[in-house]
């Protein structure tokens, strides 16, 4: 494109063409954040479940904090390592959703220390917050698998209210597989396909 003066018709053509150019394709690596949080949460949950079963050592529950301790720095590293070439309004909305939910998800366990530890439904609240985030992300990017897994996850969250004892940790881990790991891989496959057909903007 060269520097030249335009006719009105050319101006309208350029504006229309550029609007088409900026239409969102599936972005490469879209599923990476879901995979990060999905794998970290699932692995930590399983370590706690099997660790407690094997040892009966209750301090093992402090390992829940491994999720934010590993997840947050890894997420910041991933975001900094590869700066996005374009930031759309959709990106910004998704960022706001997860920032608000992330802060709430951090406040819940802190607040739970002031309550009776055995009765506070912390896994239910955490699961519900995450599922709301997944469902809303799916709705914003119009990705059906994410919407479906988000809604399934919401049902799982309520199931957690009725499951007692250590089994609720297994339900929590299974939820992350359905909610984040499967859609995360599916998102990455879809973005690779859309890149192949020229629909993908690299991030």
């Amino acid at each position, binding site marked *: 494109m060269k520097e030249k003066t335009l006719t009105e018709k050319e101006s309208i053509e350029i504006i229309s063409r*550029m609007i088409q150019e900026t239409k969102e394709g599936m972005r490469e690596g879209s599923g990476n954040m879901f995979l990060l949080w999905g794998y970290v949460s699932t692995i930590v949950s399983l370590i706690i479940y099997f660790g407690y079963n094997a040892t009966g050592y209750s301090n093992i529950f402090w390992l829940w904090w491994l999720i934010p301790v590993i997840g947050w720095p890894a997420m910041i590293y991933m975001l900094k390592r590869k*700066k996005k070439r374009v930031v759309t309004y959709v990106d910004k909305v998704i960022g706001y959703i997860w920032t608000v939910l992330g802060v709430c998800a951090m406040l819940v366990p802190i607040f739970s220390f002031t309550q009776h530890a055995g009765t506070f439904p912390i896994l239910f609240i955490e699961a519900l917050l995450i599922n709301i985030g997944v469902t809303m992300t799916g709705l914003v990017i119009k990705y059906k698998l994410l919407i479906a897994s988000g809604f399934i996850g919401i049902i799982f969250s309520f199931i957690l209210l009725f499951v007692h004892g250590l089994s609720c940790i297994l339900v929590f881990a299974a939820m992350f597989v359905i909610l984040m790991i499967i859609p995360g891989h599916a998102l990455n496959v879809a973005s690779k396909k859309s890149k192949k057909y020229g629909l993908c903007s690299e991030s």
Partner: protein
Amino acid sequence: MLHSQLRLAVMAILMNVEEADFVYLKEKTQSTAGNLSVQLDKLSEAGYIKVEKSFVGKKTHTACRILPAGRKAFESYVQALKDYIG
């Protein structure tokens, strides 16, 4: 200011996104780096866009975003086109 092919294309893109980097703009407008750089400077001097340079690793990263004055100028330009077409 906007009645130029490349500057208009850049503004049309930046109206549609929060932020776009130099490589993205170059690719979408199919312009040369030199020409795009000159036009970005002109738009920046006019107060229409903000150009931020940073480092990602060892590489420079130039991010552009539209400013309220630029948004207003673009809307006025589109309105003028609408009036002309009738």
